[in-house]
């Protein structure tokens, strides 16, 4: 920053300054405070909206050797590693990832010591009951517990305090410049923990990677993840990791608000119907695999369709087979009427449904397995759960790509310390959470792993930052 002298200095300098206010930030702040450091948390959001996307989470994935009161069986480090390898298709740093998985075991107890409570897996997510620990009351309950613990320990928190500048001298953090309602302040710190999330809420940045179509994307979480801290760090010479053009995208209800619609706008009914674009044409195999494995490809698929919109169409036979969601399905007595309500060509949709129905080969329908209900001689095929759409009333959900998080981040070492483009680690700059998730999660996603990355690297970063400040 230039004109440094014009910015008023905050009266207190801290050992550790944490940029961000979610799970990773709070774990870092608490760990640093436990280690004796004075800590300031800078949260851009208001108190209600504090915590970034942690507000919308509900579980974390931690390795454990035995079943517990809330976990139905063991989940070994090796199994966790295999899952991570599979979802990332190898785009992970094995050493860092294995260290994270090892540390995740301790995390289950540590996070409970910080006041967070777990419960057995939630209804509708029984498949995660063995691997994932669910927060009682969800992510905001977790945040409330962490903030109460941080306050009790004496961590200072500023809300609506956006980091607008970082004073970095080569590889050394000196101060954060923050903007609050009453002006701009410069706050010095002996160490920085950057835990301010990705840039998924910055539409202009998404446009850089995706083109103009990104303007039709919906953002599932906080509007505050604009990537400003990430940009400042990369601009200051910190090395990057992860594909800048990639993000995690699922198909969510097109009627959802632009930001912060959260979990309740997701739709789990793709496998039970057909999905058509605005020309009433199918474009992908809806029954390719079980839904949890295909959940995250549909954002990308819909993004590739004209106007980034698609419609899941099904009939009354499937109406109650999936988790309910916020907006009611659009309902009609006939396919043509349904097309009218969706603004699609009635003849086109009728023809698509008729062609699909004609291609369906009867089998024994079973939503719990890869069943033998499939189409023949249809392009694209529907490989499983294909049943004729022939019983009214008929239903449809409009869907758009919903962006969960981005992969671009800062490269870190084993101490969660940022690495510089010029080589070597930064002196006193650490990162945790989505802002460095790309180190272990270069692509794909496994439920609850974002919280694991946040907690494990948050604690490591907090401890490291406190240690550095004490030197």
């Amino acid at each position, binding site marked *: 920053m230039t004109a440094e002298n014009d910015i008023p200095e905050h009266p207190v300098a801290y050992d550790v300054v944490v940029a961000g206010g979610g799970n990773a930030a709070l774990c870092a702040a608490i760990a640093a405070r436990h280690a004796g450091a004075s800590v300031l948390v800078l949260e851009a959001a208001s108190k209600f909206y504090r915590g970034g996307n942690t507000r919308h989470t509900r579980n974390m994935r931690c390795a454990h050797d035995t079943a517990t009161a809330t976990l139905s069986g063991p989940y070994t480090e090796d199994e966790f590693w295999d899952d991570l390898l599979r979802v990332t298709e190898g785009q992970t740093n094995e050493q860092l990832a294995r260290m994270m998985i090892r540390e995740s075991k301790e995390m289950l107890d540590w996070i409970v010591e910080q006041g967070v409570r777990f419960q057995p897996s939630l209804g509708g997510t029984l498949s995660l009951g063995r691997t994932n620990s669910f927060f009682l*009351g969800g992510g905001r*309950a977790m945040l409330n517990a962490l903030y109460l613990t941080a306050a009790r320990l004496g961590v200072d928190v500023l809300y609506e305090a956006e980091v607008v500048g970082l004073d970095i001298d080569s590889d050394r953090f000196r101060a954060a410049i923050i903007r609050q309602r009453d002006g701009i302040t410069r706050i010095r710190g002996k160490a920085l923990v950057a835990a301010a999330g990705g840039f998924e809420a910055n539409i202009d940045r998404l446009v850089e990677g995706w083109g103009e179509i990104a303007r039709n994307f919906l953002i599932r979480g906080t509007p505050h993840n604009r990537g400003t801290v990430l940009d400042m760090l990369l601009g200051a010479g910190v090395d990057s990791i992860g594909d800048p053009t990639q993000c995690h995208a699922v198909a969510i209800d097109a009627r959802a608000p632009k930001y912060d619609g959260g979990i309740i706008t997701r739709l789990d009914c793709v496998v039970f119907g057909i999905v058509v674009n605005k020309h009433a044409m199918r474009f992908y195999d809806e029954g390719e695999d079980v839904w949890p494995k295909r959940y995250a490809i549909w954002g990308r698929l819909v993004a590739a369709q004209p106007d980034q919109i698609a419609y899941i169409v099904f009939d009354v036979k499937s109406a109650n087979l999936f988790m*309910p969601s916020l907006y009611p399905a659009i309902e009609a007595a006939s396919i043509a009427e349904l097309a009218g309500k969706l603004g699609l060509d009635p003849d086109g949709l009728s023809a698509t449904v008729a062609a699909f129905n004609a291609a369906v080969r009867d089998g024994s329908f079973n939503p719990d397995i890869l069943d033998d209900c499939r189409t023949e001689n249809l392009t694209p095929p529907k490989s499983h759960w294909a049943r004729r759409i022939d019983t009214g009333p008929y239903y449809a959900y409009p869907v758009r790509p919903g962006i969960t998080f981005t992969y671009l981040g800062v490269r870190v070492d084993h101490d969660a310390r940022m690495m510089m483009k010029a080589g070597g680690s930064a002196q006193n700059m650490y990162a945790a959470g989505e802002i460095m998730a790309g180190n272990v999660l270069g692509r794909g996603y496994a439920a609850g792993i974002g919280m694991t990355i946040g907690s494990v690297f948050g604690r490591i970063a907090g401890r490291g930052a406190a240690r550095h400040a004490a030197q």
Partner: protein
Amino acid sequence: MQRSEALTEADRLMTICNSCRYCEGLCAVFPAMELRRSFSGGDLNYLSNLCHSCGACYVDCQFSPPHEFDVRVPSVLARVRHESYADYAWPRALAPLFRSNGIAVSLITVVSIAIFIIGFVAFNDPSALLASRHGPGSFYALMPHTTMAALFGAAFLWAIVALIQGARAFWHDMGEPASVLAEPRPLLCAIRDAASLRYLDGGGVGCYNADERPKDDRRFFHHLTFWGFLLCFASTSVATLYHYLLQREAPYPLWDLPVVLGTLGGIGIVIGPLGLYAAKRKREPAMMDEGSRSMDVAFLAMLGLTGTTGLALLLLRESSAMGVLLALHLGAVFALFVTLPYGKFVHGLYRFLALVRYARERHAS
């Protein structure tokens, strides 16, 4: 039938909550909700009466205000609950008592106390009201026991009949078969859950009141109130048995069972409501239904008045204030009895029935 605004809003919220389910470990409301995909009026009345207003789902919700989804489960369910009390009131003509409940209960109480004072004066020598008396039978010098028993027996009977009719209406609205009430398991389960206030604990840490800090005050004070009420009731019952079976007349010595039970109970229904009122004053407004406030406060005040006058009567029963205090206490108790079916008291009955149904549903699923 046109749904009330509160029911429509509750339906919207339950649709949101059913899509999220993050709160399902907090209490009984959300697991009960998950057994359904759409919500009839009876379902919503059931869920609203199952809610203990612990507030955990409000502070844990990522969609509570200022979020645009405006999810306020405790306050909306409180509103639905309040409306349901009026819907189930018997006779129907008295349903409006639930509107402006505070004024209605106050008026009934004032009139009731006035009648006792006037009665004491009219049926006795006017100076009798201020005379000091001692020993057994001193109360009955002002009002013959038979008259007292007949009057309070009638008021009590009225309350019982009206409460049973209300319970029947609620049970029918939920669509539960009557046979469920004959099953021991759901009943025992509900008795345990109600007696321990299992769901007034914020999912295990204490309920939420002013902010996101859990506190167990409300459960503590509710226990004082509830058990205090039961002790007072036990005291009256024992005294009635003494009178008819043992021919022993009130007032009883301080060490005697009716006095001991009544004193402990009286302390409970004074301190408990005071604590609950203090908590209500501090409560986050977004967690409350403003329309229920006067009903809530009226019931707390009635309990407090009954307890205070009872304890004062005990302390001053041998002084010249006894006559006036007896009129105050009997007036308060009489008003409490006749307003039981038309005030906050019914929450206990309907919540208990909702817990019975919940126990049955849980077991069945």
